[in-house]
């Protein structure tokens, strides 16, 4: 009898685990424009993006990769820099302060953080948070003039819930994030 209960309990646990398995992941974009009151909400299942992006063959996006002209500008190899940064301890790597704009690039808890503050003209704060796995996937193309969007989306599917981009300005605010909800709540 005990064996039967044990088997039943095992089946119950396995079923519960299957139900609790991670479901669909979503990429959300929210844009609010204060000037004309326009609101844009986009909720894209990552699996949908993963299928559609490799199928696009238009302009600079082909085979799931975006061609970027100056990706390896002035002989700087971004892939090698990312590889070096991956093993570096947490900290602030680049700080550029100039009239009207401050840029800070840092690594914290395995995440690449870019913070830009524009104080000239339209005031705007931009925060970009990219998990290392995603940054590496983006630069994983053999061609250094390409960003591998398809690989980045696959990497995002394994990332936890997080905000990727926030832009807060006088006129509009933008938020891009990933989670498991099919709406923007």
């Amino acid at each position, binding site marked *: 009898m005990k064996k039967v209960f044990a088997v039943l309990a095992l089946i119950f646990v396995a079923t519960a685990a299957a139900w609790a398995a991670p479901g669909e992941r979503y990429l959300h974009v929210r844009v609010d424009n204060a000037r004309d009151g326009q609101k844009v909400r986009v909720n894209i299942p990552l699996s949908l993006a993963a299928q559609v992006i490799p199928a696009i*063959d238009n302009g600079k996006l082909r085979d799931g990769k975006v061609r970027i002209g100056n990706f390896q500008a002035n002989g700087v190899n971004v892939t090698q820099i990312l590889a070096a940064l991956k093993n570096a301890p947490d900290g602030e790597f680049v700080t550029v302060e100039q009239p009207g704009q401050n840029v800070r690039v840092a690594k914290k808890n395995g995440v690449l953080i870019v913070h830009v503050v524009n104080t000239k003209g339209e005031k705007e704060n931009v925060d970009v948070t990219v998990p290392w796995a995603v940054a590496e996937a983006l630069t994983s193309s053999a061609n250094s003039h390409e960003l591998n969007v398809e690989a980045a989306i696959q990497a995002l599917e394994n990332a936890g819930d997080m905000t990727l981009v926030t832009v807060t300005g006088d006129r509009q605010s933008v938020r891009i994030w990933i989670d498991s909800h099919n709406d923007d709540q």
Partner: protein
Amino acid sequence: MILAAKIGLGLLGTALVAGGIVSSEGFVRVSVQEHRSGGTHIWLAAPAMAAPIALRLIPRRRLENAIDNAREWLPAATAAASELEKCPDGPLVEVTDRVEQVNVSKRDGSLVVDVNDPRETVHVAVPLGALGSSLRILAERATPR
């Protein structure tokens, strides 16, 4: 009398089976309601399975223009329809401003587009299965340039 009843049952059965087959892929629904006084209200529901069949029957020269315009995006659109069919229901795109609302969502296996502006309210629902089949047929009929 019994023969008539048998024929009647046969016809009814055939009609039911035909109805079941025709509606198996759902219906394309289009509704347009003009807001001006005396504005028209168009409501249309057509069996979705008719769309792929119609696309096969239309002569190629009549489709050429549409195919040429859509050629580059056909693989992506086909992949999107196919993948969206597997995704759970939910809102996909919502655009709202002071005068207009546009919603695109997946609901009950259909891609649903709702537009509400001061001039009219438009509702379109296209079953994703039929949409995918139609796009695949267009892709097959599109010869490479």
